[in-house]
């Protein structure tokens, strides 16, 4: 993250989805393991593998381990996820592997996220028997949010989505704040790491565990970031500006990772 990047001159060169993918990919280092879902996460992991992390171990929760992804999967269990893979195992064994502490990163999403990074993908409304809107539920999200070392969230940012308190904690962030994951019995050292939105990269304050803006994307203002959150965001000082996608990143992303524009052809919001 540097602040001297001439992002304005490059503004037209990439779209919001490309930015999300490129930024997310930079957090994955070589020799690490990452559990990915479809869409931006898998694109980010593929990009990282091609640029910075040739030995990134990609894990799909349905059982696909270290495939040579020929194209984007549609399902986290489909044939692409085991193409020339090292292993096609069971979900149970993937979850065991997660529980043993072998998964460094995971990517999650949700309909709502709160200031402690708790995620809701179960329902709108607080009456469990009569939800206003029902969503799919945890899937493997709670498992990864509980047991992976670092949880990353890639999500569009809006005040409707960034709420002071989620209607339903599907997946644990820092729960009620410092110490509450540990009190709940979750393994120490795990938890929310980064939130990458269409506006900014956010992290968490080391003591208060509250969400904190770490860098804003080129062309975005701090006020915009604040306005698109339903709770008060801490802001890191000095605040960085996100490095825009490099030419290398964009070329590999467009030509090798997602030539059919399945991910980068969508709207970032």
């Amino acid at each position, binding site marked *: 993250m540097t602040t001297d990047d001439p992002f304005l001159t490059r503004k037209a060169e990439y779209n919001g989805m490309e930015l999300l993918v490129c930024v997310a990919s930079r957090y994955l280092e070589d020799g690490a393991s990452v559990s990915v879902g479809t869409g931006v996460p898998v694109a980010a992991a593929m990009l990282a593998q091609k640029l910075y992390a040739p030995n990134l171990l990609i894990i799909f929760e349905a059982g696909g381990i270290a495939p040579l992804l020929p*194209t984007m999967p*549609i*399902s986290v269990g489909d044939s692409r996820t085991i193409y020339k893979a090292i292993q096609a195992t069971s*979900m149970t064994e993937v979850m065991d592997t997660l529980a043993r502490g072998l998964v460094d990163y995971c990517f999650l999403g949700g309909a709502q996220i709160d200031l402690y990074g708790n995620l809701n993908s179960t329902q709108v409304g607080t009456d469990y028997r009569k939800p206003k809107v029902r969503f*799919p539920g945890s899937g*493997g999200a*709670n498992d990864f949010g509980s047991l992976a070392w670092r949880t990353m969230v890639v999500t569009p940012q809006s005040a409707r989505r960034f709420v002071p308190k989620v209607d339903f904690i599907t*997946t644990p962030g820092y729960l009620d704040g410092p110490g509450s994951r540990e*009190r709940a019995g979750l393994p120490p050292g795990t938890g929310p790491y980064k939130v990458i939105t269409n506006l900014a990269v956010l992290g968490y304050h080391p003591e208060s565990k509250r969400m904190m803006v770490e860098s804003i994307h080129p062309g975005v203002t701090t006020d915009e970031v604040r306005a698109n959150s339903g709770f008060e965001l801490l802001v890191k000082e000095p605040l960085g500006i996100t490095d825009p996608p490099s030419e290398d990143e964009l070329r590999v992303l467009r030509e090798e990772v997602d030539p059919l524009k399945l991910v980068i052809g969508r709207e970032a919001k």
Partner: protein
Amino acid sequence: MEGKGRIFTEVDPDLLRECFRSKSKKLTNKVTSVEEAVRVHLHDGDYLAVGGFGGVRIPTALLHEIVRQGRKGLGFAGHTATHDCEILAAGKCFDRCDAAYIIGLEARGIPKMTRKYFESGAVECTEWTNAALSWRLRAAAMGISFIPARSMLGTDTELHSAAKEIACPFTGKKYLALPALFPDVAIIHVHEADINGNCHIRGILVSDQDLARASKTVIISAERLVPIDFFRQDQEKTTIPYYLVDAVVEVPYGSYPGNMPYEYYSDEEHLQEWLTAEESPETYQAFLDKYLFGTRDFSGYLELCGGTHRMRQLRDLEYLRKPALERSEGTEGEGTD
């Protein structure tokens, strides 16, 4: 904390032991029809679990038949249940559900009528996670009534589960005790099976090895039947051994429109058509009348969806090949199948 949800299945391992004891270990011909398999082995009120991964390696033919036969009041294991959940919801077949992942079709979207079914209050849910359901099935496969786990802790998912917090007697650490999940009936689609019920699954297993072990009754649909020597000559092929299985049906393309790894890719266009049909009750009814209730069996459905020509395309997609029509004959090593 103690989950407020209900446990929908028997957890007493001794009752299950009696049930498993009574299963025959004979090598006998268990081949039957889809119609008979569902009629004989699945009853109103049973708790049903479906193998595969929602839109991957699902027993579509059996699922359609369950709807056609109008099975009601089922319990349902929503273990990454996507298109399978959609089919059963179309028939309003279940009224209680262990929900880990329901309604949605992963990145494809959320079908409206299926969602409405869940939001209507017609379905009592208990919340879980994918790992929790996997581990609940493993506990059942181990013949024990509970197993400790470390996810769900501290969340509303835990609160609306039926798990209970316990302490490890060795470390004092907090765990969630998950109750074993013993389904009444499992339906699983596999690549190959023999008449006795030995099964071979290629690719991801999800939880199907444990599911076959955990279930009182197991119905298998297979892409193809093979002789028993297929297994006796190479035991690495035996994903599910015969003595766990009660019925076997042969259904080529039996996972369509789902993906069958190494066989054919998912039919995204048809899944999209289904999703779009769910926009309103009227369009959905028309869609279901045409594809589900208007067909006598699964082969009728396949014909409606494009028959062998479409299947050929999906096979090309699976193998990342150019479409067959674009291939010049005799120049491709892979041939034309």
